[in-house]
């Protein structure tokens, strides 16, 4: 299989559920298990929430979500054009959060890493952040 879809949404928290359900619906073409779908939904929710809270700091912005399906893999790109991350290595550490006052737990990146097979973070301060995640579907574990 070889398929692609692109989605552009406003950085509103009410779009979080829309984004994860839409990506999951697209991913279902690969015939994933219920658990694989739940993993994808959670990872997308983490990345989109980060764009809204950290990238745009709850201000207006646009989030791009690009999905590609390969034979047995889904690739998901989630992009914002917001604040950017100064130190990606530190940001990816478990329990690190720059916004503890907002009841964030610093678990977002850890969840994306454990629920997906691969994650890449590209970020430029003042330009934005791009997360690329891959998950293999139907792998024998």
């Amino acid at each position, binding site marked *: 299989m070889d398929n692609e879809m692109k989605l552009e949404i406003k950085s509103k*928290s*009410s779009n*979080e*559920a829309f984004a*994860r359900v839409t990506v999951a619906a697209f991913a279902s073409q690969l015939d994933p298990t219920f658990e694989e779908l*739940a993993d994808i*939904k*959670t990872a997308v*929710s*983490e990345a989109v*929430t980060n764009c*809204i*809270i950290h990238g745009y700091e709850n201000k207006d912005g646009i989030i791009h979500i690009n999905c590609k399906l390969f034979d047995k893999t889904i690739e998901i790109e989630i992009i914002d054009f917001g604040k950017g991350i100064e130190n990606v290595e530190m940001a990816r550490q478990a329990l690190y959060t720059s916004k503890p006052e*907002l*009841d*964030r*737990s610093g*678990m*977002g990146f850890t*969840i994306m890493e454990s629920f997906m097979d691969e994650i890449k973070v590209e970020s430029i301060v003042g330009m934005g952040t791009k997360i690329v995640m891959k998950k293999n579907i139907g792998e024998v574990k």
Partner: protein
Amino acid sequence: MFVNYEIKSKELEIVFEEEIDHHTCSKLAIMSDDNIKKYMPQTVLFNFEKVSFMDSSGIGMLLRQI
């Protein structure tokens, strides 16, 4: 979200439903805070059996309550 309060044991059960994410959790946090203030329970039981989706926003909400 709804609550069950057991007078005898002073136990408050907070039952969460549906989806817990960044969008829904602020309202849920306020509602559970209000109920804890109202009942002043000795123990609080958070029940997530009816929750169909939860991400790190739910973890943050829970950490704040304890």
